[in-house]
């Protein structure tokens, strides 16, 4: 029986488990090559990903509808992407994604501090470019590009900020 098994499986367990130093060296060199390719892939992904993307224009509101120091929630570019249009006390219009970059809690405009605030973990974002002012968010809020056509305000694209 044992002889027959040896004929069926001629590989010895001892030899099968044995890995020479040269084989291990070759495996490590291959792993090194794989990691180099992976890191190059991340670099390519990083270089090719666009800062700004355009989508179909969507009308949000008219200038007259919004008084200074107020905000308006809207969805852009998809119906599930919540955003916030803000008219600052200076009269300037800005729009940002409403999803906090920390844990996706909805953020709110704070006219008293002229900033965007996340109540979940006390995160705050600047209205200048969406950069993080305080708290745990790891990256800025994506900014919505606006266009003015007469009295109407349109959302036309999305910009990702650098951390």
């Amino acid at each position: 029986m044992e002889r027959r098994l040896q004929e069926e499986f001629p590989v010895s367990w001892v030899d099968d488990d044995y890995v020479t130093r040269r084989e291990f060296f070759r495996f490590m060199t291959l792993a090194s090559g794989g990691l180099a390719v992976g890191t190059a892939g991340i670099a390519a992904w990083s270089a090719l990903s666009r800062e700004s993307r355009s989508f179909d224009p969507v009308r949000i509101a008219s200038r007259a509808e919004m008084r200074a120091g107020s905000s308006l929630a809207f969805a852009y570019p998809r119906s599930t992407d919540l955003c916030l249009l803000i008219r600052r006390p200076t009269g300037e219009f800005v729009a940002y994604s409403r999803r906090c970059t920390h844990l996706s809690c909805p953020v709110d405009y704070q006219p008293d501090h002229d900033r965007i605030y996340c109540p979940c973990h006390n995160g705050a974002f600047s209205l200048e470019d969406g950069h993080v002012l305080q708290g745990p968010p790891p990256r800025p809020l994506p900014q919505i590009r606006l266009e003015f056509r007469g009295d109407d305000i349109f959302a036309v694209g999305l910009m990702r900020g650098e951390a």
Partner: protein
Amino acid sequence: MTPTPTRRHGQQAIIFVALLLFCLVLVTIQLWLFVGSLEAHLRGNRAMSIPAAIISATVFGLNAWMYFGVRRIERQDL
């Protein structure tokens, strides 16, 4: 004084193990670079990824050079 074949073989084995350990350290550094550049990319910081890729490729070149060097030495001994 010429070393005896046994002594020479022992020296080669020590050098081989030293190179293997060095290779392990280099692969660990590459793993750290890979994870670091992926984390930085997902955080939105893109400044790190290209230098990390260049360093990783250089380290791979060094590893490949060591591996082929060891193989060449082994072939010469046979």
